[in-house]
Every structure is written in C-alpha cells, then in structure tokens.
C-alpha cells in the first residue's frame, strides 16, 4: 500500500470507521456527525459511468459511508462520470487535491441486472490499488455501495471496513417496543419483533443470522433466540425466576445467560435451543452481563466485592479475576474483537460514561462526554463503539471511535432508541 497514505493514516490517529447514518427518506434513523478526525484524507469518488439508470447512484452511498467514518474528506470531481476502463485523468484528480480516487462503470448484464465495476487509484503515485466487479439487481445499490466503501476503506487503512454490517436496537414509541435491525448507516430499518412489553439485551449470533434477547411478553424476563430471515424463534431460557443477559459463545453453539432459578442472579450457559444448562460461575452476590471474548474469557459484572465491578473467568472454568478497580460502579463489559481491550460503563460522579480499558497497560480512557451511557458494543473491526445515551431526555444511539475522536449520533424523529448491538461482518 502507498506509504504516503499509510503514514497519513497513522498520523491521524483517528482510525475508525463506521458509520451510522444518514440518508434516505425511508430511513427512520438519522445520523449526525458530532466529531471527526482532524487530518482527514482527501479522497474523490468519481460518478460512475451509467449509474444514473439506477434508483439512486451507488457512488452517493460510497461517499456517504467514507465521509461518516471520520477518516476521509470527500473531494468533488464534478458531474462528468469516469469509467472503469478509460485511462484515469490523474492530472485532473491531483489538481483537486485528492490523494486517492475511484472510478467505475455500471452496465446492464442481462435479466434486469447490472454489473458494477470499479477501480481505486493512488493519485500521487499514479498506480492502481485494485478494483472489483459485481453483479446486482437495481435495488441493491446500497449493498453494492457499502461493499465498494469497505474495499476502499480496507485498501486505504489496512483494516476491514464495517459499512456492510448491521445493527440491532430497541425502539420504544409510547408503550410499543420494537426490536429493529438496520444497516450500519441507519438505513433500511426493519422490525424483527413488536411487543407491548419491554425487550432488552439483543445479542447477535456470530454468523449474524440470529439474535438472542430478553422479552418481557410473559410478564417476566425470558431469553429467546430468533432467526431473522424466517421469524422463527425459540425459548432459550425460561426457568422459574428471571432469565436474562444472553451472550453467544464464539462458536455460536451456546449462550451464557443469567438465571435466578437457584437464588440470586448467577451465570449459566445453555445450548441455543435451551438444553444442556450448566453453571458457569458462582458467587454470593449478583453476577450478570456476561460477554464471551475471542481469547477464552467470559467477562461479567459482579457485586461480590460490595460494589458492581468487572470480573472475568476462563470460559472453560476456573477462578474469577477482578478486572476493574477504579470507582464504585463499573458495569456492562464488552471485550474488543482482538481481546486486547475492554469497553464498559463507569460511573464518574453522577455520570455514566463509556470507558475503554487497555487490558495490557491497564490504562483507562473515558470515551464520551455524556452522562447516561449504556450498553456499549464494538464494531467487528474494533474501531468504533456503539452505545445508547440520552439527549434532551430522549434515548439515542451514539458511536465513538476507540480513540475517542470520531463521534456520531443516531436518533429517530420521535421515540426512544436504546439497547444497541453491533452485528458481525456479513458472511458472503
């Protein structure tokens, strides 16, 4: 990869990606960028030849994704499209100040489908950074745009993009609760479950096909597993007492859950179909909010020491270790995808704030300036953290880069949005 670009990106320190956001009229969620990196890389996405025949330009989606990541500044190249096959006009691009640019062609490929071809160039070195061709139906322009943005993001930063991922969250409007799934940019929101009773704690299966969550539709908390593509769901935990806080094992076969069937809230695991319940840990206090790491730990919240703090146990069994030590209220732990850091909510004075803990250096960093943060979860590339907070008395979602610089807010016109969970990379 272009050393200049690499250097540039390392210099910005705002490596992040992601994007909640924006856009379409149909989207219920709207995004606002509330903080961006300081040295954003200038990038141009030329209009693709032939894309005006689509319902909406693929390149609009690509530009919006890259812009929202907080890492890139979009450079305008004017209305004339640049095709994937023509020799690129490097001089024109350089004169506009772009360090990298993409060109492309959209052409009918038969049966009402289109082939989208694009190439990415380093404008300074005047070399190709690669390209792709994909075939799509006209209404798939958003998905195609996200994939192109992911390709560009990865080529320019060296890390996977998360523009093609989805998020889950709960929308509360009056007394109605909806578990919704939307694209990572907030568009294309769909309701997976509607209820008059609360829904909390959605958790994505590692393959992204199912959600586990807690629904109160039976007047008590019960854990369900729900297949998104079919709407089929099954009870994963409905023991006497409360059943809550589901967390998937990395292999997607088991769920850690919190049950009160034997007394206080304690950690157990069950198969996704509800069979095979086993105790995971025991204490004389509350143990809750388990989260499986990819490196063999289960992180959780426990007040066994008097105040709620973060602990961890080996997933295969063993003694608990205390992980958080500062302050008297540290809850909702979520390990990063690489297992090297942990995000959680800490109470500082009367403020509840998303906090990052580097598990090697033991350094902590408060990532937000808000006061009612809840339910943090990492993007699958580890660069952004999605969480719930409150603005003007209303529940909104927000995302912050793991270095605290890039900030976005995702809200709806009316109603509260809460309990977000960032889904995994799609498996193609």
């Amino acid at each position, binding site marked *: 990869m272009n050393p200049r670009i690499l250097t540039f990106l390392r210099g910005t320190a705002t490596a992040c990606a992601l994007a909640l956001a924006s856009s379409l009229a149909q989207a219920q969620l709207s995004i606002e960028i509330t903080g961006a990196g300081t040295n954003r890389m200038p990038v141009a996405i030329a209009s693709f030849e032939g894309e005006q025949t689509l319902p909406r330009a693929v390149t609009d989606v690509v530009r919006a994704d890259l812009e929202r990541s907080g890492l890139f500044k979009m450079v305008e190249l004017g209305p004339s499209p640049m095709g994937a096959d023509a020799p690129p006009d490097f001089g024109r691009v350089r004169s506009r100040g772009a360090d990298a640019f993409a060109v492309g062609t959209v052409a009918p490929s038969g049966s009402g489908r289109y082939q989208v071809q694009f190439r990415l160039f380093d404008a300074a070195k005047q070399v190709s950074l690669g390209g792709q061709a994909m075939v799509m139906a006209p209404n798939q322009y958003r998905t195609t745009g996200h994939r192109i943005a992911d390709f560009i993001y990865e080529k320019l930063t060296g890390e996977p993009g998360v523009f093609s991922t989805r998020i889950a969250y709960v929308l509360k409007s009056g007394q109605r609760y909806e578990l919704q799934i939307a694209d990572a940019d907030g568009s294309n929101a769909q309701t997976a479950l509607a209820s008059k009773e609360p829904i909390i704690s959605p958790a994505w299966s590692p393959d992204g096909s199912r959600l586990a969550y807690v629904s109160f539709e039976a007047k*008590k908390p019960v854990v369900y597993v729900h297949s998104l593509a079919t709407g089929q769901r099954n009870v994963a935990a409905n023991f*006497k007492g409360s059943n809550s806080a589901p967390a998937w094992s990395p292999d997607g076969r088991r769920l850690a859950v919190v049950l009160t069937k034997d007394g206080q*809230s304690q950690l157990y695991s069950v198969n996704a179909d509800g069979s*095979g319940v086993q105790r995971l840990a025991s204490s004389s206090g509350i143990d809750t909010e388990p989260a499986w790491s990819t490196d063999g730990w289960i992180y959780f919240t426990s007040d066994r020491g008097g105040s709620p703090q973060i602990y961890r146990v080996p997933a295969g069994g063993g003694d608990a270790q205390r992980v958080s030590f500062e302050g008297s209220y540290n809850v909702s732990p979520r390990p990063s995808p690489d297992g090297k850091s942990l995000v959680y909510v800490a109470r500082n004075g009367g403020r509840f704030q998303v906090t990052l803990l580097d598990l090697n250096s033991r350094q902590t960093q408060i990532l937000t300036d808000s006061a009612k943060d809840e339910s943090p979860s990492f993007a699958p590339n580890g660069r952004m953290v999605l969480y719930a907070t409150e603005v003007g008395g209303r529940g909104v979602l927000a995302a912050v880069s793991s270095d605290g610089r890039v900030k976005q807010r995702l809200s709806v016109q009316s109603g509260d949005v809460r309990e977000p969970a960032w889904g995994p990379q799609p498996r193609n």
Partner: protein
Amino acid sequence: MKYTRITLSLITVGLLAACSSSPSTEGQSGATVEDRPSGAASSGVDSNRVVPVDANGAGGKSAYPELKDPKNILSKRSVLFDYDSYVIKDEYRSLVEAHAKFLTSHPSVKMLIQGNTDERGSREYNLALGQKRSDAVKKALTLLGVSESQLESVSLGEEKPSCSDASEACWSANRRGDMLYSGEF
C-alpha cells in the same frame, strides 16, 4: 438475615402468579418453537430480510373479587423500598400478612412477584437488583407459611416504571415490588 425483623420494611411486592410450568427441558417452561411463514432469503442482499413477529399476548381475569375490591387490603399490591435497599419496611407488614393469609387459604392460587428499580444505571444490573426486591417479598411470604410452589419471584428491573420523571419522588415510586395473582399475568 433479618427477615423477620425486617419484615416488611420495604419492598415492593409483586404478586405472583407464577405460572410455571411444566418443566420441559430441564426445568424450563415451555420451550415452544414458533414457526412463522418464512420469507426466505435467497441470496446476497435478500438474506438480510427480516420477518416481523408480534409478541402481544392476551391477559386474563382473576376469579377472586376480593383481590380487586378497593376496600380490601388484598387489592393493594405494591411494596416500596428505600434507595439501595432490599428490605421490606415495617409499614408493609400488614399488607404482606394479608396476602400470605390469602395464599395459604387458597393453595391452588399462584402469585408472580415482580421486582422493580429506578432507572439509573445498567439495565441488566438493575434487573438483578429488582430480583433482590422480589426475592425479599417471596421470602417474607414463605416465612408466613406460603408454599414456595405458589410463588415465583422475577424482576422487571427498570423496564416498567410506574412513574417516568427523573426525580427522587418518581424514583422512589419505582423501587417497588408488585404482586400479581393467577390470571393477572
């Protein structure tokens, strides 16, 4: 613990009617599987399709009018707790005793006790704290002779506030245990 002394110091009681359940899988209640028409997913983008499910069920009615009679203490179903406390206050002693008496004289009746918390902090941790309140009510009832099989204590955490302002008056109303009888949940 000082349950007897406490006896009712705070708490919210929820009543319960627990339902409960024929244990199917290892003590689980009804691990039902709902088959919904699937709108299937073909490939690519279409596999992102999400099929909506409606979870709204139906409520029931109690066969015992005294439970609904505003002049009867049994119509009172809530026990309030102090901040960060899981002990039933003395002022709720007669209420809990009345419900214990009703349950012991109607052994087929079940009660669901729902514990609640105020809104501050983690939803799941609050769910666990609410459980401590419903457990306190359940314990008080069993100490008064109610069979454990008639009782189920659960938590609604901060999810079902009776009052939604961010004020101490409201928060205290939400630190509550509610008692529901069979047919009410």
